[in-house]
């Protein structure tokens, strides 16, 4: 029986469940130094000087560095951006001249233990002349640096005749919507352990994640190291969500310290640091309008938004704004379109991508707008969606622009079909009747829905090598990374399926730059699509080699042979002669190997729907998500249990983003959400069972397995669905214009409602 499509238990869980996982903080080597970062206490100011004499005089101080000490190291560059001219907005690894957000590194302290390092850091005194911070992305731009505006760039995507669409519209629906600043907040904070290897002269950086190969190159270039003198190693990773594993100043500093101090250096981020210094995301304000005909058909969509980028452009460049523009149209035809995104620098923590970048935001805006259209025209929101859906027969469907350097071509999809099946599966009519009955009895309760199109499987390539050793072990070496999502299990399933073996002897390697020359890593829901496809090809090749060698040994034509478990047998004589895989490898010279590269020019576009049922308590303004459903077409699920796990985790983050999580700043730019008691992540008590309906009706022709990505499906339209459900519970369409919908905001909203609706 095929292993693809089976909910095999996760192979990677044994060490995690038995406490033998090795996370960054678990890595300790003799003679190690600890780094502590001194961070800016103010949001914006001129860094007039840094008094370090007292710190240096501390008996435990090995070194204290300021910007001067690292002046030869360039700022961190962009991993993903095609927009030119953004270099002046890069972050220096230690603040130079100005500090631009609370938490910005201004000095690095090195000592033999983390306690002493923190004692010494306390003695470093930055002299900062405070300046008025810029906190609102939509405020008029001002000077960032001499000759540089706080508007780093404007991203625009457009097609069709928008003016004509609005001129001839039956109605125009306008909304202003705000999305709060939040982030991934993995439970394992960041960490970097740089170790010099005496014999080889190689610098090894542990604690890497997500994109080790790219970071290796970037670090080598920044530090002037030959590429063969640095390797990155990924251990167990306690969550990534897009923010972990990007190259940050602290990674560069630990490596530079190894080169200069000649000792291993460890840095482990604490939670406060994580909540002020690791990438944040999402914060934006949208002004959007739709031109519609009398049936609710959107004939034109015009969006302008201001993205709160924070103090610098980091590795992602302006990807979030780019994706927001690109993904806003979603599942709808929309014949004329324009989206203009202003990337604005503010004096807050810099932003990067966070799970479903651009799609969480765009889905919120688009689906809010569709609900508003339905309300304006007195139509059922589901009917309006159906009328605007791109038809199954229109696939592949090309948008007249590109994102992430690839043209946007929706490969396959049956949006109306999915919505119909999903509503059947969840018992839509029963749900509605139930809600109506409870409302009649006085409860404030509502249902809301959001549809979304995802993107996944970003190329351009992935390499894989599979080796069958003389001991029977099968090693699958990938350039992928694992941030906990089940890469080992899924790759092993695909490999075993291609070879015909079981899972027992397969070992999947990821995130080790000394094992494979190139690798793209783990982001953009790409690993199962891209690495999985490369594994499929490599496994088929290896199987051919295996059968050819076995055929020679058994003097049988390879097409009469099959791999079953760890043996090769003759198909029509299963009880006849057979060969052990290990023996075949030994006879082939010790091992058998196959390499494969999979390349893709286009992404693949899965899609789905979120449905939330919420209850509001009028007196306390409490909002409870009672039920949360996700319908998703993943093309083909290699491991349905893991897909559902991805979706459940994403939905939890989506509920957090919609109701709880927000980085708040006071008027001086001081972050107010710097502990997990104020940055509120949802706990198991706030999350209902996520009810997932998986579909495989639209496999993609773009890869041999037909799979689409699943990493971001759970969060994409959560904000949209919950906002709609809250509206419905309030009995006031369009009431929610801002995420998260906190009790405090709901309180203010209820105060605006006419009394009889209370």
């Amino acid at each position, binding site marked *: 029986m095929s292993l693809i499509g089976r909910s095999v238990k996760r192979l990677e869980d044994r060490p995690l469940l038995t406490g033998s996982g090795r996370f960054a903080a678990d890595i300790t080597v003799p003679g190690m130094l600890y780094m502590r970062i001194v961070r800016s206490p103010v949001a914006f100011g001129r860094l007039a000087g840094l008094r370090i004499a007292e710190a240096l005089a501390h008996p435990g101080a090995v070194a204290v560095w300021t910007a001067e000490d690292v002046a030869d190291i360039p700022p961190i560059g962009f991993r993903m951006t095609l927009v030119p001219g953004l270099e002046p907005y890069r972050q220096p690894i230690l603040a130079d001249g100005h500090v631009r957000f609370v938490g910005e590194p201004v000095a690095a302290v090195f000592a033999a233990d983390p306690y002493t390092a*923190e004692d010494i850091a306390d003695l470093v005194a930055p002299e900062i002349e405070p300046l008025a911070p810029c906190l609102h992305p939509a405020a008029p731009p001002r000077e960032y640096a001499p000759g540089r505006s706080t508007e780093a760039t404007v991203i625009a995507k457009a097609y069709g005749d928008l003016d004509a669409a609005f001129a001839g519209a039956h109605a125009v629906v306008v909304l202003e919507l705000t999305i709060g600043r939040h982030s991934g907040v993995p439970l394992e904070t960041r960490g970097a352990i740089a170790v010099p290897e005496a014999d080889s002269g190689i610098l090894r950086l542990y604690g890497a994640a997500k994109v080790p190969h790219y970071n290796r190159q970037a670090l080598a270039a920044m530090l002037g190291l030959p590429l063969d003198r640095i390797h990155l190693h990924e251990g167990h990773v306690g969550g990534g969500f897009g923010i972990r594993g990007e190259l940050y100043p602290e990674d560069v500093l630990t490596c530079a310290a190894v080169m200069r101090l000649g000792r291993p250096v460890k840095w482990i981020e*604490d939670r406060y640091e994580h909540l002020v210094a690791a990438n944040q995301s999402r914060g934006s304000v949208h002004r959007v309008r739709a031109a519609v005909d009398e049936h609710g058909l959107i004939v034109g969509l015009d969006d302008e938004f201001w993205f709160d980028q924070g103090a610098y452009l980091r590795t992602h460049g302006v990807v979030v704004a780019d994706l927001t523009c690109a993904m806003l149209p979603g599942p709808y035809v929309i014949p004329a379109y324009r989206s203009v995104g202003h990337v604005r620098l503010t004096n807050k923590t810099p932003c990067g991508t966070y799970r479903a970048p651009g799609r969480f935001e765009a889905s919120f805006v688009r689906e809010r707008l569709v609900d508003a259209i339905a309300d304006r025209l007195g139509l059922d929101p589901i009917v309006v969606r159906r009328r605007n859906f791109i038809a199954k027969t229109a696939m592949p469907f090309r948008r007249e622009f590109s994102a992430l350097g690839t043209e946007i071509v929706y490969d396959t999809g049956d949006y109306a079909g999915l919505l119909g099946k999903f509503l059947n599966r969840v018992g839509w009519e029963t749900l509605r009747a139930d809600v109506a009955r409870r409302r009649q009895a006085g409860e404030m309760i509502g249902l809301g829905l959001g549809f979304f199109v995802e993107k996944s499987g970003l190329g351009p390539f992935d390499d894989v090598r599979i080796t069958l050793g003389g001991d029977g072990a099968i090693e699958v070496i990938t350039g992928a990374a694992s941030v906990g999502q089940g890469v080992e299990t899924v790759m092993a399933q695909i490999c075993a399926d291609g070879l015909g073996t079981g899972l027992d002897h397969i070992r999947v390697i990821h995130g080790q730059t000394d094992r494979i020359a190139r690798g793209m890593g783990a982001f953009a829901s790409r690993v199962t699509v891209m690495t999985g496809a490369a594994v499929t090809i490599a496994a088929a090749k290896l199987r051919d080699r295996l059968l050819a060698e076995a055929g020679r040994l058994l003097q049988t034509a390879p097409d009469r042979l099959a791999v079953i478990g760890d043996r090769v047998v003759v198909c029509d004589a299963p009880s006849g002669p057979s060969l052990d895989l290990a023996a075949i490898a030994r006879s082939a010279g010790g091992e058998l190997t196959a390499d494969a590269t999979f390349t893709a020019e286009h992404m693949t576009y899965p899609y789905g729907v979120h449905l939330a049922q919420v209850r509001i308590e009028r007196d306390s303004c409490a909002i409870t998500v009672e039920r949360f459903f996700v319908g998703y077409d993943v093309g083909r699920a290699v491991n349905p249990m893991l897909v559902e796990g991805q979706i459940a985790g994403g939905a939890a983050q989506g509920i957090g983003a919609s109701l709880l999580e927000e980085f708040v700043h006071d008027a001086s730019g001081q972050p107010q959400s710097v502990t997990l*008691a104020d940055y*509120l992540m949802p*706990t198991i*008590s706030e999350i209902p069972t996520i009810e997932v309906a998986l579909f495989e009706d639209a496999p993609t022709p773009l890869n041999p397995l037909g799979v689409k990505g699943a990493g971001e499906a759970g969060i994409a339209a959560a904000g949209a669905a919950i906002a709609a459900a809250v509206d419905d519970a309030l009995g006031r369409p369009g009431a929610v214009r801002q995420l998260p919908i906190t009790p*405090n905001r709901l309180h*203010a909203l209820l*105060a605006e409602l006419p009394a009889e609706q209370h």
Partner: protein
Amino acid sequence: MKPVSFRYFAPRTVDQALELLATHGGEGKILAGGQSLVPAMNFRLARPASLIDINRIDSLDYVREDGGELRIGALARHARFEGPVAGGALGAFLPRVARHIGHLPIRTRGTFCGSIAHADPASEWCLLAATLDAGFLVVSRRGRRNVRPNEYFVGALTTILEPDELLTEIRLPLLGEDWRTGFAEFSRRAGDFALAMCAAFLRFEDDRIVEARIGLGGATDRPSRIAAAEALLTGSEGAPDIFREAGNIAAETIDPLEDIHASAEYRRDLVRAMVARALDQASAR
């Protein structure tokens, strides 16, 4: 997030602890459950030069009924109150409150008396102590005193405790079967500190309220009783309308805290809601 270095003492008896406090109390701190102190030390907000760890003083580890009172020793952990510790209306009430304090790992370490000493405005035990007019037994080398809540609570995280003093015991009235109780709390997530909460105690005679105690926590800088609302209820039959009215009085009486989670106006309305809910609950029992 590593504390500054400190000296550590682990006395075995109250006398040893008082001796240490007399010597080091000025720059030192008592370590009980550590659930408030240790996070503050890790943030370096608290930088005690010495820690006097009372966890090995077995004689402080008790909860017992005595002469119509419940006596709670300094080492009684929150989790203990999730199970039965006493009879009477108080005994039934304690478990309903205890589960609102943080999460289980916090409750298995944190102590009742530590909460009272810490005096967080949103502490459930502080609210209870203030509402039931608890006795606070405070000892030092200089002597012992028995303090009452209106004197004990000075402000947010501030009490009359002197650096050399140990809070050894809290005494709560057990409350006879003629008391009915209600407790309502609002926090953003399960286990978070309350944005507002109310504890209500009503004593009925012949279907009339003859004594009322209404305490508020989380909404102001320290727990407080709402005398005007208590007066309103006393003598009434306790109907929903008058409970709403008591909530309104409480809401209008207070000077609410403001933070990123709740504006003053929202807190005021939460108080209104929590008072009404707690009273509804009390009258239903």
